[in-house]
C-alpha cells in the first residue's frame, strides 16, 4: 500500500475511501489520531500511522473505542485537531463519553468517523450509527463519493471548530473499502502548540448541564444554517420530476445507476444530501415542493426518511400532500445492503413500470468470468490457525467432560468458531468481551440448578478491550467459569494491528508489553498457559481447568497468528501424507482430517482416495499429524 502522503497535491489518485478520509484529515492539519481497529474503519488510522513520523503527528491504537475518543478529545481540548475512527459496534462503547462530550464541547476540530457495515459482512450486527447524531445533537456528514470522503473530512474540522463540537462522519463498507479517483490537496502539518487552557468555569465538567444542553441546541441551529448552503447537497434532474429520489451516502451511486439504467433521467430527479443531520430544512423543502412522490434511498435504517417526514409534518400546510416511498412503505429493505437492482425495483414499482429484469444468467456469467481465479472455499480459519487447534481441544475436552459444557464467545477471528472450521463450538457471540460477561452470569446459576461447565473465549486484543472488567467481575462475585484467552499476538481479524500485549506501538516502535499471566495472576486465580498446537497438553489442561469447578480460571492459549508467522518465521514442519497409510474413507478414519478437522492445507484427492497436503497453503504447523489415526500424516522438521 502506497502511503497517503506519496501523492502530489493537485493530482488525481485512486484511493480507498478510508485512505481518502485519512488524507482529508492530513489536509486539515490533524495532529492526533486514535482508534481501536474495527472493520470497515481500520485503514483510516492505519494509513495515518504510516505517515505519523513524517507528518509529525501522534497516532495510537487505543485499548478500546471509548479510550480512543477520550484521548482524541484531550488533544482537541489542548488545541490540536484530532480524528477518531470506529465501526458501528465501537460507537456503542464510546457513546458513554460522547454523550457528555457533546455538552462540554471541544476546542480544536474533533472529527469522529463512524464506519457502518450494512449486511454485517464483518460484524455481529448491522446497526445504523446515524441516530447518534440526532441523539447527541451533533452534525452528521455522509460522503457519497471518494472525493467527498476526503473533502468532507477536511471540512468537518472547520465545522467542528466553528460550532466547538464534535463533527460526525458516517461511512459504510462500500465507501470505506471501495476505491475511486480523488483530486488531492496539500497535506498540512499540525503546526499548533498543544496546551490545555480551560477558560470558562466548569467548561469541561458536568456543571450546568441544562445550560449546556440549551447551548448545544443553539450550536445545532447554527449548523443547520451552515448546511443550507453546503456544496455537499445538490439536486440533479428535471424541474418538476414525476418522482424525487432523496438519498445520501452509498445510496447516491445506486440511485444514479438505477435512474440511468431505467432511462428515466427526464422524469426522476435526485436530491443528494451530504449533510443529513441536522437537515437543511429550507433546502429540503424547496426540493420537496417539486413533486408529490418521494422515494428515500439510504442504508440501513429509515433515518433520513423519518427525518424528512418529521420535517414535512412541521410544514405540511406549505408543502401540500406528499407520498413517501422507501423502507416504511416496503419498497426498500431496512436490513442488508442496497444495490442498483434494489433501487431499480423500487423506482419501477413506484412509477408502475415493468421492472427491467436483471439478466437471469448474470450470476452464472459473473462466476464464469471469475471462477478460475477464485477458489470456492467456505468462511473459516486459515491453514495453521491456532484457533482451530484450540477449539479442537475445547471440543474434545467438552465431549469428554460430558456435562453439557459450552463456549461463550465474542468478536474476533475466533467468532468463526461458531461454524464448521471451529467445530461449531461458540454458542454465543455478541459484543466485545461479552463471552466473559455471559460466563459470569452462567457461572452464578448454580443455586438455580445450573450444572454445565462454562468456557468463555476472547482474543488477546479483545481481552484488553472489554474482557478485563468481566474477568474481575467473575472473580469478585465468585462466579464459576474458565476464560480462555486466545493469544495469537495480534488483532488479527482487522489486519494485525498491534495491541498492549504485542510490545509494539501503532507506528511500529517498541512499547511496553502487558504481561497477561501476571495481570490475570494478580487477581489471585488459577492461570495456566498452553500451546494450542500441543493437543496432548492442551486438552487435558482444559479438562482439568473445567473440572476444577471453583471460581474463575484462566487458560492462555498462546500461539502466533498463522499469517503473522508466515511473515516472521519459516514453517516449523514440512508436512506430507503417506498415501499407503492413509485410510481415507474406510472405517477407522472416515476422512477425519479433510472432513472434520478441515484445515485448508489438507485436501481430499478423490482420484487416489487419500488426503494430501496443499503445499502452497499449508503453513507447516504440523497439528494434523497428531490427529491422524493412522499416523499417515508425516511432519518433518523443516
Amino acid at each position, binding site marked *: 500500500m502506497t502511503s497517503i502522503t506519496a501523492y502530489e497535491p493537485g493530482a488525481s489518485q485512486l484511493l480507498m475511501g478510508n485512505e481518502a478520509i485519512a488524507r482529508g484529515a492530513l489536509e486539515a492539519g490533524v495532529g492526533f489520531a486514535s482508534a481501536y481497529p474495527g472493520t470497515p474503519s481500520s485503514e483510516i488510522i492505519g494509513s495515518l500511522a504510516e505517515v505519523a513520523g513524517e507528518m509529525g503527528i501522534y497516532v495510537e491504537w487505543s485499548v478500546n473505542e471509548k479510550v480512543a475518543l477520550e484521548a482524541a478529545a484531550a488533544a482537541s481540548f489542548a488545541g490540536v485537531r484530532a480524528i477518531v475512527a470506529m465501526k458501528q459496534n465501537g460507537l456503542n462503547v464510546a457513546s458513554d463519553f460522547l454523550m457528555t462530550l457533546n455538552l462540554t464541547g471541544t476546542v480544536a476540530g474533533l472529527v469522529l468517523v463512524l464506519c457502518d457495515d450494512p449486511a454485517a459482512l464483518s460484524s455481529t450486527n448491522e446497526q445504523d450509527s446515524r441516530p447518534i447524531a440526532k441523539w447527541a445533537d451533533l452534525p452528521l456528514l455522509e460522503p457519497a463519493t471518494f472525493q467527498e470522503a476526503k473533502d468532507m473530512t477536511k471540512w468537518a474540522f472547520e465545522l467542528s471548530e466553528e460550532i466547538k463540537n464534535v463533527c460526525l462522519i458516517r461511512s459504510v463498507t462500500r465507501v470505506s473499502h471501495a476505491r475511486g479517483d480523488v483530486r488531492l490537496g496539500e497535506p498540512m502539518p499540525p503546526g499548533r502548540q498543544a496546551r490545555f487552557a480551560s477558560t470558562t468555569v466548569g467548561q469541561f465538567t458536568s456543571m450546568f448541564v441544562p445550560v449546556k444542553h440549551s447551548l448545544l441546541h443553539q450550536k445545532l441551529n447554527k449548523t443547520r444554517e451552515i448546511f443550507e448552503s453546503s456544496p455537499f447537497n445538490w439536486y440533479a434532474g428535471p424541474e418538476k420530476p414525476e418522482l424525487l429520489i432523496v438519498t445520501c451516502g452509498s445510496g447516491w451511486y445506486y440511485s444514479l445507476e438505477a435512474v440511468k439504467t431505467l432511462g428515466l433521467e427526464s422524469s426522476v430527479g435526485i436530491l443528494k444530501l451530504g449533510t443529513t443531520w441536522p437537515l437543511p430544512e429550507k433546502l429540503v423543502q424547496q426540493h420537496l415542493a417539486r413533486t408529490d412522490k418521494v422515494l428515500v434511498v439510504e442504508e440501513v435504517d429509515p433515518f433520513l426518511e423519518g427525518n424528512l417526514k418529521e420535517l414535512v409534518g412541521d410544514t405540511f400546510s406549505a408543502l401540500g400532500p406528499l407520498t413517501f416511498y422507501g423502507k416504511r412503505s416496503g419498497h426498500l429493505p431496512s436490513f442488508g445492503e442496497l444495490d442498483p437492482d434494489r433501487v431499480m425495483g423500487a423506482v419501477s414499482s413506484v412509477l408502475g413500470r415493468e421492472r427491467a429484469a436483471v439478466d437471469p444468467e448474470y450470476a452464472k456469467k459473473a462466476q464464469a468470468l471469475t471462477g478460475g481465479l477464485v477458489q470456492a472455499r467456505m468462511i473459516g480459519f486459515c491453514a495453521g490457525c491456532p484457533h482451530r487447534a484450540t477449539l479442537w481441544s475445547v471440543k474434545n475436552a467438552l*465431549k*469428554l467432560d460430558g456435562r453439557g459444557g459450552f463456549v461463550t464467545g465474542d468478536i474476533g477471528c475466533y467468532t468463526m468458531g461458531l461454524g464448521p472450521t471451529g467445530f461449531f463450538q461458540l454458542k454465543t457471540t455478541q459484543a466485545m468481551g461479552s463471552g466473559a460477561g455471559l460466563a459470569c452470569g452462567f457461572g452464578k446459576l448454580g443455586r438455580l440448578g445450573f450444572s454445565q461447565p462454562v468456557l468463555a473465549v476472547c482474543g488477546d486484543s479483545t481481552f484488553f478491550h472489554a474482557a478485563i472488567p468481566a474477568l474481575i467481575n467473575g472473580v469478585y462475585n465468585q462466579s464459576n467459569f474458565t476464560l480462555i484467552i486466545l493469544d495469537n499476538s495480534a488483532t488479527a481479524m482487522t489486519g494485525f494491528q498491534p495491541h498492549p500485549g504485542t510490545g509494539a506501538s501503532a507506528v511500529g516502535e517498541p512499547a511496553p508489553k502487558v504481561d497477561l499471566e501476571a495481570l490475570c495472576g494478580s487477581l489471585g486465580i488459577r492461570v495456566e498457559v498452553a500451546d494450542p498446537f500441543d493437543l496432548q497438553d492442551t486438552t487435558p489442561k482444559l479438562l482439568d481447568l473445567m473440572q476444577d469447578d471453583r471460581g474463575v480460571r484462566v487458560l492462555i492459549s498462546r500461539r502466533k497468528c498463522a499469517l503473522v508467522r508466515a511473515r516472521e518465521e519459516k514453517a516449523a514442519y514440512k508436512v506430507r501424507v503417506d498415501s499407503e497409510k492413509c485410510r481415507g474413507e474406510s*472405517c*477407522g*478414519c472416515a476422512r*477425519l482430517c479433510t472432513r*472434520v478437522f478441515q484445515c485448508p492445507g489438507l485436501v481430499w484427492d478423490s482420484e487416489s482416495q487419500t488426503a494430501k497436503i496443499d503445499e502452497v497453503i499449508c503453513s507447516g504447523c504440523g497439528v494434523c499429524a497428531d490427529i491422524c489415526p493412522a499416523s499417515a500424516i508425516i511432519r518433518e522438521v523443516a
Partner: protein
Amino acid sequence: MSLEVKGCRELQSEVIARDLCTLCGACVGMCPYLVAYRGRIVALDECNLAQGRCYAFCPRTSLDLDLLSQTVFGVPYAADELGTVQEIVIARARDEGIRSKAQFGGTVTALASFALDQGLIDSAVLTASDEDMLPSGTAAANAAQILGCAGSNFAAAPTLAAFNRHSAGDAQSIGVVAIPCQALALANMRASPLENRNNIDKLKLVIGLFCTWALRYEGLARFLAQKVPLNRIVRFDIPPPPANLFQVFTDSTRIDIPLDDVRPFIRPACDVCIDMTAEFADISVGAAEGVRGWNTLIIRSHAGRELVEAARAKGIIETAPLPEQNLAHLKEASLLKKKRGLRKVIETSGSEDDLLYLKLTSEAVKGLLS
C-alpha cells in the same frame, strides 16, 4: 451375520443413548471418533459411515447367538443355563503368592501366566486400575504384569479398547481376560461380516470371568470419594452372601459399605444382560461358593481344555470336582440372571418380538421365561 450392521450414529442412538452400553471397549481404539473416558464411551466427532466395526462388534447391537456359537465352538447356541460346557470343576493356583493377591483361587492369573509361559500367547490383555481405581485395559507381556492386574475392580472397564490397540501392533497371539459382555464382543469380532477387520485372528485365548453386574465408575468414584480419598484405595471385595457388603480396602483400613448403597451405580446395561458365566470364552472362571480360596472353572472350548490340562499336568493349578450343590446353585443363579435380563429386555422394548440386541428363537425365549 444375518443382522444389519449399522454405523457410529446408530451405535450412539441405539446403544449409548439408551443406556445399553456395557463399556466393554470393543468400539474403541480403531478410529479417532470413539473414546472411553471415565466410564463412558464418548463420540468426539460425527463419523458419517453407514457401517462401522463399532456397531458390528458391540455386544448390545445385534447378537446372533447361534452364529456366534458356531463361530466360537462350532455348535449351535445352547440356550440353557450355562452355554457350551465341556467340564466344570473347582480350581486354584498352586502358587500361594498368586493366591494371596487374587480375589479367590488365583486361577485366572495362574492360567494367563501359564499360557504366556507356554508360548500359547505372546501377550495378555487384562484390566488394571489406576491410582484413583479407574479401570482400563492393559497389555501384559510377563507374569509380573499379569499379577499386577489380579483382583476385581467391579467398575466396568473398556478393556477391549486395549485389545484393539494392542492387536494392531506387533503382538501375534493374544489372550484376553474378559467379562461376559467383553467375551461376547470378541465373538462378534470373530463373526464380523465386514471386510475391514481388526486383528481378531491374533486372538488365541479368552479367559472369561463370571459377572453379575458392573458399576458406573463416575458415580462410584464420587460416592467413595466422600468416604476415603480414591488414591488410598488398594482393592475392593464383595464377600459371599449373606454379608451383603461392598468392602473398600486401603493400606491400613477396611471400609464396609452396604451393598445396597452401591447398587444404584450398577450400569443399566447389566440389567438386560443374560450372560453371567462368560459363555463365549474358552474357559470361564468365578468364585466357588462355599469353598474358600477356590474358583469355579468352566471349560468350554477345545483350546480351553488343552490349556487347563497342561496347567494341571505342570502343577500350575490344581482342580477338584465341583460339588453337586454348587452346580445346582450356579445354574440357578445363571438362569435367574437370564430370566431377569430377558424380562428387562421385553419391558424396555415393549414386545416379546423385539429383544433389542438379542436374536433368540421364540422357543428359547419361552423356555427361559417359563
